[in-house]
């Protein structure tokens, strides 16, 4: 389904659309206040962007350095070319330990790899421990936002879900009460898990350690007890040195939620005593993006979600309308770069307003990349005829000034004379909710020529 069609369905519920837009705009506004409180904000952005650019230019070296340092501290490092390899590695590790139930803290990478259904098919119970993730998991849905996975769901709906699945009181919608119920439910899962899986926000080449940022502390809880910790990371999560971490931690939470810093920035630098620690370095198309000079800056992304929050299209169409693990502006870049045929409509789910590029803490020129991607889609012949044909016609007109003049005169005359029903028909999407301009008798060029003629008299 194209984004436009899915968005139309979302917008059909106008109350929800308004609420979704306002809820997410509130987060964007909090981001503005948080960013404004840091005098060197723009310098931080430039610095972060430069660090990422540098790292990506020598990614191979930094990955090797990271691996060596991690191994030195007793961490086991695995490499996965794609999603399938990643999932196989996880399952193998779990099987070796005879683990049948795991807890998982937020990781968009495992979402991208389809890890949950894969493990569940192998008979392993997977419980997401981030509250939002747990909610969408219980609803058998995917996250609609990369930082706020359940932002599309109202508290009343959570109350209903928890009533059905956790036995809370019917009709309860008090966030404190519901959170308490989720906490009790998750505590049990956390205490009895056979393994803890986490994502990775930053991996530091110099130290061989990783940092996981959460607001609920669920990464700490999920890894504190089980005998095995498996961390999955995309290879672009690397930064060279520990001293660079502060730049990103200052940007991440402010950009994501408007907080000065996430509540927990957990550092994992070696296995806990008696525990095994594994890190899986996943490529899954990233080296292909890295090799693509036009689009490799998208690998700067630290998954803060700020571009989603600011995007006027995302706010009015919801994350699921993108049909991709990562929605919004950044998702509309990285998904079509990997698979233009499958995601041909995403670069067009954008008015090119440019707000995403301004808000991005690592300065990815998102809207310019979306613009460029439209060229890629067209070049590969993936543009639907409905988009292609009118422009072919317009080009034929615009290259011939006489035809443009004659056509303009004709079009204005037709618009003035035709009965309304013929102008506002099903084939005119402009006119579904909007009037066309009031058509003047004269074009500018005629009016101007007349005026000049009068003047010279």
């Amino acid at each position: 389904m194209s984004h436009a069609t899915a968005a139309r369905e979302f917008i059909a519920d106008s109350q929800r659309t308004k609420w979704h837009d306002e809820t997410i705009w509130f987060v964007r506004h909090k981001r503005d206040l948080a960013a404004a409180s840091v005098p060197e904000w723009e310098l931080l952005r430039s610095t972060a962007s430069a660090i990422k650019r540098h790292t990506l230019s020598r990614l191979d070296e930094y990955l090797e350095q990271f691996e060596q340092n991690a191994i030195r501290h007793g961490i086991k490092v695995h490499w996965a070319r794609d999603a399938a390899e990643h999932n196989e590695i996880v399952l193998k590790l779990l099987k070796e330990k005879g683990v049948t139930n795991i807890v998982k803290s937020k990781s968009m990478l495992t979402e991208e790899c389809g890890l949950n259904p894969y493990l569940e098919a192998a008979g392993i119970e997977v419980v997401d421990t981030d509250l939002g993730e747990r909610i969408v998991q219980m609803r058998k849905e995917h996250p609609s936002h990369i930082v706020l996975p359940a932002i599309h769901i109202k508290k009343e709906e959570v109350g209903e879900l928890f009533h059905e699945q956790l036995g809370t009181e019917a009709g309860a919608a008090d966030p404190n009460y519901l959170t308490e119920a989720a906490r009790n439910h998750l505590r049990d899962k956390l205490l009895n898990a056979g393994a803890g899986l986490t994502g990775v926000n930053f991996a530091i080449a110099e130290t061989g350690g990783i940092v996981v940022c959460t607001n609920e502390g669920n990464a700490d809880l999920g890894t504190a007890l089980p005998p095995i910790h498996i961390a999955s990371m995309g290879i672009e999560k690397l930064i060279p040195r520990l001293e660079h971490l502060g730049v990103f931690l200052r940007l991440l939470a402010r950009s994501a939620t408007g907080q000065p810093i996430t509540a927990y920035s957990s550092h994992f630098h070696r296995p806990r005593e008696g525990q095994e620690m594994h890190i899986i370095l996943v490529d899954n198309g990233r080296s292909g993006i890295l090799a693509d000079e036009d689009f490799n800056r998208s690998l700067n992304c630290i998954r803060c979600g700020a571009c989603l929050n600011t995007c006027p299209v995302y706010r009015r169409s919801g994350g699921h309308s993108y049909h991709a693990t990562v929605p919004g502006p950044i998702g509309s870049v990285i998904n079509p770069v990997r698979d233009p045929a499958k995601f041909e409509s995403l670069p067009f789910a954008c008015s090119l307003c440019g707000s995403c590029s301004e808000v991005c803490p690592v300065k990815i020129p998102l809207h310019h990349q979306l613009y460029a991607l439209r060229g890629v889609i067209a070049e590969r012949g993936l543009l639907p005829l409905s988009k292609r044909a009118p422009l072919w016609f317009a080009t034929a007109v615009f290259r011939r000034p006489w035809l443009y003049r004659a056509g303009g005169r004709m079009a204005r005359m037709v618009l003035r004379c035709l009965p309304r029903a013929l102008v506002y028909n099903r084939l005119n999407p402009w006119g579904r909710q909007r009037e066309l301009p009031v058509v003047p008798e004269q074009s500018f060029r005629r009016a101007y020529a007349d005026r000049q003629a009068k003047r010279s008299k």
Partner: protein
Amino acid sequence: MNVGLFIPCYIDQFYPRVGLATVDLLERFGATVDYPEQQTCCGQPMANTGCQDDARVVAEHFLQTFKDYEYVVAPSGSCVAMVRHHYAGLFGTDARVEAMAKKTFELCEFLTDVVGVEQVEGEFPFRVGLHNACHGLRELRLGNPSEHMAQPFNKVASLLAGLRGLELVELSRSDDCCGFGGTFAVSEEAVSCQMGNDRLADHESAGTQVLASADMSCLMHLGGLARRQNKPLAVMHVAEILAGYEVPQPSPARS
């Protein structure tokens, strides 16, 4: 100052008053204006849809038409952004493109940056809601966008501020996109109209009497929504206000 006037195709066809106001303003501030008859379009609709080869054909025509002018001025931020930022992608390294990018200006930035206009004399006793069109704002930096942490400025607002009696309303979202976006307005019609209606609601609660912008395409979209809903909202290009034109009576949707 020898100015080649670029009047975007839809302004030529639908909004002649905006073109005339642009000429009035440029002449008032001492420019010699010439309107080359051969002009058509800058190529933005093609380029924004990814049809780069088509865009190149139209852009080539633009380059030819305007090559001999000292300056090229247009009352449209998005067309100027196309010429200044996106022609390079169409033609690669090309001296003609570089020269054109340097001499092409949006009307308000031409007045403030090239002519050095600080205030425009006149009177406009209305509550004006300024729609900060995205391309002008973020591509041309006619103002500081709300996402960017820097000293606020707004070239369009500062020109308007010189008019006696004019009051700029305070919007809850100063620069959220209106949803026009060129072909986006048609291909993503539902989102586009939702965005436009949200902008209109913001202006209504701020008490806007005249909705103004330096980009007529946004106003074509917003005005089209307002008129369908018979909202008592006048819509004017900034050039019309600065040139002292009368507020048009909102015309109801044709039945």
